[in-house]
């Protein structure tokens, strides 16, 4: 039974649950490794935790692929971005082209600039828009602050936090547009009304029959630096045309890209599940081993304690402990370990009690082997497959327990987990508003991860416990 790995794997592979479980595990592992290695983790967790990153995104937007199924096309969020732009003295500029084809207006338009560097006089950045009908309007103006005393060129600005301008609520643009509509279309609107109805409607629309309809075609956004005597460069910038849908998985109520949170959840959830399970199984089995083999007082104490801990409602106590010691990852794992071992200790002990009386142990003892040697060389190999199976069997329960704690608001706030995504969703009433893209994916991922281990357990059962082999062959 102990180390016939090849034969064991054959039996494992003959069950469909075993095959499916292993396949799922490989997928989970690949996604986790991809998240941790290929994607820069520091960068994505910043994208998740740093408000600067999602301030621009639409809030509570469904994923863009809903357009494949819905009748009314939701406008996708369009990001027009550039990197390493050099703008010198008004002669050079950065152009961004938007080919707009939609029946609706954007929900907002914003401009953000990051890492600006200039020499000479401080520049004034101007974003102008040339509409498909050829009319042009100045959309935004950023006056870059002059050098502080003692600051030497090149001067850098907006390095830590990008400069954001919400074009769609700009007074200046509203005034410019009111002017444009009066001059070119003979439509008299007050700037206040433009602001109230949404500046972006007027910027990207034409008056037709008393209302404003979207104007399709190519829009040219041009960023220039005025009044600059030297060189101006911008590390990163973008114009965001806010839509009703965003990205692969949509966004949450504060505009975070859910795809990033879900992706980060993979390694964290696997880590919590596997690490806790390994420690719990190790401690539980070791205590069971000691308790069963030593007998006497040690056995009595361990079993009493295990019995006691097996007989208390776990969740209220876990909540209490995590609340008292603070919601940190290591606290959560420690608490799981402290309360997870008793079940296994009781089972391991009963196995050891049977083994202890078997003939090969008796003969080893007769030959004069020490207790330690018997435990290590004779008993441990016998229960090793069982212990490995227990590690896999326990893993989903810890994944689920962590998710439950996170859902109650006791997750480690520095790590995004699926449970926490659901907690925010629940607390911000996503359920009552029907934001399914926020509710379904994290829950399904928790289930899939747990089922992976359940299936592997089912597949391992006939390997570990030959008596049940027949059941799965039937």
């Amino acid at each position, binding site marked *: 039974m102990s180390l016939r790995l090849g034969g064991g794997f054959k039996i494992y592979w003959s069950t469909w649950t075993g095959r499916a479980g292993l396949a799922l595990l490989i997928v989970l592992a690949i996604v986790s490794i991809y998240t941790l290695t290929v994607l820069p983790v520091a960068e994505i967790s910043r994208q998740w935790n740093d408000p600067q990153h999602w301030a621009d995104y639409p809030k509570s937007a469904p994923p863009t692929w809903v357009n494949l199924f819905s009748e009314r096309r939701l406008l996708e969020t369009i990001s027009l971005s550039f990197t390493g732009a050099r703008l010198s003295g008004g002669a050079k500029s950065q152009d961004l082209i938007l080919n707009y084809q939609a029946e609706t207006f954007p929900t907002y338009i914003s401009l953000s600039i990051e890492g600006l560097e200039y020499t000479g006089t401080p520049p004034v950045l101007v974003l102008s828009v040339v509409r498909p009908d050829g009319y042009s309007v100045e959309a935004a103006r950023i006056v870059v602050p002059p050098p502080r005393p003692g600051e030497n060129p090149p001067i850098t600005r907006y390095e830590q936090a990008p400069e954001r301008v919400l074009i769609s609520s700009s007074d200046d643009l509203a005034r410019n547009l009111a002017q444009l509509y009066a001059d070119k279309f003979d439509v008299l609107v007050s700037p206040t009304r433009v602001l109230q109805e949404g500046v972006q409607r007027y910027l990207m629309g034409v008056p037709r029959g008393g209302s404003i309809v979207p104007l399709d075609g190519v829009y040219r956004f041009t960023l220039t630096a005025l009044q600059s005597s030297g060189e101006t460069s911008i590390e990163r910038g973008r114009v965001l045309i806010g839509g009703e849908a965003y990205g692969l998985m949509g966004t949450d109520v504060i505009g975070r890209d859910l795809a990033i949170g879900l992706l980060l959840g993979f390694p964290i959830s696997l880590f919590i599940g596997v690490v806790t399970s390994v420690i719990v199984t190790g401690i539980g089995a070791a205590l069971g081993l000691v308790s069963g083999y030593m007998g006497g007082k040690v056995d009595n104490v361990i079993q009493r304690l295990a019995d006691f801990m097996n*007989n208390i*409602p776990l969740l*209220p106590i876990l909540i209490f402990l995590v609340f008292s010691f603070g919601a940190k990852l290591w606290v959560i794992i420690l608490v799981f370990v402290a309360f997870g071992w008793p079940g296994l200790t009781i089972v391991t002990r009963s196995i050891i009690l049977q083994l202890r009386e078997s003939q090969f142990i008796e003969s080893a003892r007769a030959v004069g082997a020490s207790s330690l040697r018997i435990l290590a060389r004779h008993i441990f190999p016998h229960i090793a497959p069982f212990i490995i199976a227990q590690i896999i069997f326990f893993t989903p329960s810890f994944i689920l327990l962590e998710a*439950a704690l996170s859902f109650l608001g006791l997750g480690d706030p520095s790590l995004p987990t699926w449970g926490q995504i659901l907690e925010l969703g629940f607390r911000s009433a996503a359920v009552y508003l029907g934001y399914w893209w926020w*509710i379904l994916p994290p829950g399904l991922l928790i*289930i899939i991860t*747990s089922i992976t281990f359940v299936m592997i357990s089912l597949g391992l059962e006939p390997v570990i416990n030959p008596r049940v082999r027949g059941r799965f062959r039937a």
Partner: protein
Amino acid sequence: MGVYTRLALKALSLIIVLFGVLLFVVIIFGATGLSDRVLSSIVNEEVRLYRQSVASQIRDPEALEAAVTKFRAELVRSYGLDRPWYERLPNMLLRVILLDLGRARLAQTFTGSNVISDIIMERLPNTVILVSTAIAINFLIGIFLGVRVATKPGSRLDRATSFLSAVSYAVPTWWLGILFILVFAFYLRLFPYGGLYSSPPPSDPLMRWLDIIWHATLPITVLVIVNVGLTIYVTRTIVLNIAQEDFVQVARVKGLPEGLVNRRYVMRVAAPPILTNIILGLAGSIGGAILTETVFSWPGMGTLFFEAIVQSDEALILSLVYMFTLVYVVARFVLEVLYMVVDPRVRI
């Protein structure tokens, strides 16, 4: 050993469990400094009330201040705040047992009281109704289907149930609740989003009960779905093992009707281990209820727990840990008594 001795021993061991949990929790509470915070907030509250009551009698502000300071010092001494936490452990333990932990930070009863014991006493019945109904339905369905499945071992139905029971283990109760709200409340509009009554609650008593049942349908369904797979599976295994015993075969060979064999020979023997299984699942059901109540805003102790965490209300959390353990211990005891009824061997 007589029945009563046995029951007394069970009760004693359960009381030890309750006391052990309490002791553990109170030690953690003291060692992390949370008990200082709870007691000081009780003291502050009493000092505030005292100041209000004496302000009309003592006009001189200095004398008032002196009286208040004196009163505070007395309180601090009487609550043991001037001593380290381990010295006032017995006192704290007594406070928890009597639920004398002051006022909740924000939580209130229906009538507006924020005394912790009032709040908990108001919420307790709601939790008990929800959990006990769910457990009862779970086992009615579980045993019925489990016995059904056991009559056809190895069949497609049998394998499907074993697989589904394994899968249901991987489904978080609370997420299933959220899913149900999304489907049955948001999209289909068949059931309410949560709560205990419609607002305003119907005045007619019968309608009131129907209203509660309507509100309880989704949470109970969720609790049953998540737990019933395991119950079916375990019942099936137990019944299957017993059905293969010789004495059952003999009964069949004697030509006894199948129904009688099942009732008298199989179920009579299977009942105690099945009940043991209910007892073992109890702790899990209570945990599941905390989450399910939260999801459905069912005004029980589980939802209160969630509120207490959100509001960082230490005293309320401590009281709830105690109450949940107490509920568990009492339920355990009821089941132990039931166990003696179904298992004649215990009564000898």
